């Protein structure tokens, strides 16, 4: 024993400020020290996937909202007349629209806009061969909801051959895309959760093996399972909070690079992202701790 050690050893116990080392020390256990890092990596992936999914769902929802809110009416040209409001068929169609409940702004596209739209859809050559229809863009009011079938009948009576496009096909496509995105996102997040659960259980399980001697002493000293369990659960919880917290930050930054809209509209986007991050972080911490606890308990029951 060195002189310093002897001096420290002989200091009266009353001088100590409540000497209370932890029951277990995890320093120096490589796998255990890697746990926050692994959990951090997994958390950054989970948060990134979750925010990506949120972003896609939000944008799809925006598109669905737009598609829901607009109707496009095509009124075929009356032969010999320029497709404008002077066309009686267009006037009758406008009257019918104005007298329909559940519609908001009604706008007739001018000739140039119409030509651009038609050419974009069908090619440049078509306008030379086919007379341009009159296109009326109609905003749907939130309430009352317009009865599209009834509107079709009324328009057909007012302007025979008029067509109403309520974007049904587009909406169906968008809704299908929403389900796909949600499934994909949840699948990826679930995969990360599985990895977190397995990693946490294995790393803490290995730590139990390394602490066998201390556990043995604790048991023969009369420690119930919960005392020993609390050491490992506490370590898993600390690792998870540090790792998952930092991982969440990294995941958010990555997602912000993909979706810079957050910087333009933080008041719109943050209320979407924050609850998602809180949910993912809480679930990750919970999964890590519960998996660790389960494996420790299983090992304790098997070993002593």
């Amino acid at each position: 024993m060195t002189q310093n050690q002897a001096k420290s050893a002989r200091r009266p116990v009353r001088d100590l400020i409540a000497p209370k080392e932890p029951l277990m020390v995890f320093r120096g256990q490589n796998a255990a020290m890697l746990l926050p890092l692994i959990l951090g990596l997994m958390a950054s992936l989970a948060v990134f996937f979750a925010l990506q999914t949120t972003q896609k769902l939000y944008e799809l929802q925006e598109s669905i909202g737009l598609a829901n809110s607009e109707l496009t009416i095509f009124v075929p040209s009356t032969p010999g007349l320029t497709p404008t409001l002077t066309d009686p068929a267009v006037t009758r169609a406008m009257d019918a629209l104005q007298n329909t409940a559940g519609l908001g702004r009604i706008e007739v596209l001018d000739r140039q806009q119409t030509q651009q739209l038609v050419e974009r859809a069908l090619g440049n050559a078509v306008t030379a061969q086919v007379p341009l229809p009159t296109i009326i863009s109609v905003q749907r009011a939130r309430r009352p909801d317009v009865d599209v079938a009834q509107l079709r009948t009324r328009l057909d009576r007012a302007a025979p051959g008029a067509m109403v496009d309520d974007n049904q096909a587009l909406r169906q496509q968008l809704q299908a895309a929403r389900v796909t995105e949600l499934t994909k996102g949840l699948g990826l997040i679930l995969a990360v959760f599985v990895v977190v659960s397995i990693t946490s259980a294995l790393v803490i399980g290995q730590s139990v093996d390394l602490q066998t001697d201390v556990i043995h002493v604790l048991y023969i000293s009369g420690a119930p399972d919960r005392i020993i369990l609390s050491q490992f659960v506490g370590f898993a919880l600390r690792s998870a909070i540090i790792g998952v917290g930092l991982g969440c930050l990294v995941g958010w930054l990555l997602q912000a690079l993909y979706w810079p809209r957050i910087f333009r509209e933080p008041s719109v986007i943050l209320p979407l992202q924050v609850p998602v991050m809180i949910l993912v972080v809480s679930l990750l911490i919970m999964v890590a701790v519960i998996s660790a606890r389960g494996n420790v308990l299983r090992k304790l029951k098997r070993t002593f």
Partner: protein
Amino acid sequence: MDQVTVDYPARPGIIRDVSLNLPAGSFTFVTGPSGAGKTTLLKLMFLGLKPSAGRLQIFGRNAYDLSRDQKAYVRSRLGVVFQDFRLIDHMSIYDNVALPLRVTGKDVKSERDYVQELLYWVGLGDYANAKPEELSGGQKQRAAIARAVINRPALLLADEPTGNVDDGIGLKLIRLFEELNKLGTTVVVATHSESLLQRFEYPAIRLDGGRLAVRERDVA
């Protein structure tokens, strides 16, 4: 202990049909050659092992009907001393000795004087802040004894407590056990040291090949 048998997968019959009764307040040696089953017998007594057959009662209760929490409570009434001390390296001697108080939910702070008194009793009063690595083998064993008796155990089990210390220290350790025994603690010491057996006139039971071979001196 009633017709207890213990089989290890690699060594069946490490304990065979052992029946034994240790009265409260007794002092008993368990002896026999290496591998005779002494450690296994003690393991059974501190509920660290489940017998393959037979019945074990401790403090009047069937040991293997107890829940895990009840077993922990029973262990809190036991003190165990090992040949290799089993002190926790990162803790000071004070914390090692106070460990049973801490893990059984007692207030270590209010028991500080008692812990210190016990450290003086085993001759380690000045070493409260030392780490186990700073102590000699004999000092470590005395710290382990202090830890084993801190909860005022009803039963003290010592597995070759003198195995890693010289004869003089070994004698002092057994004297410590005697003092405890006089205070009412039941003491069981497993040893293969013939000199200890000859020196102390306590009942001794001999194990050989897992069987209770001879009662060298009758257990009271």
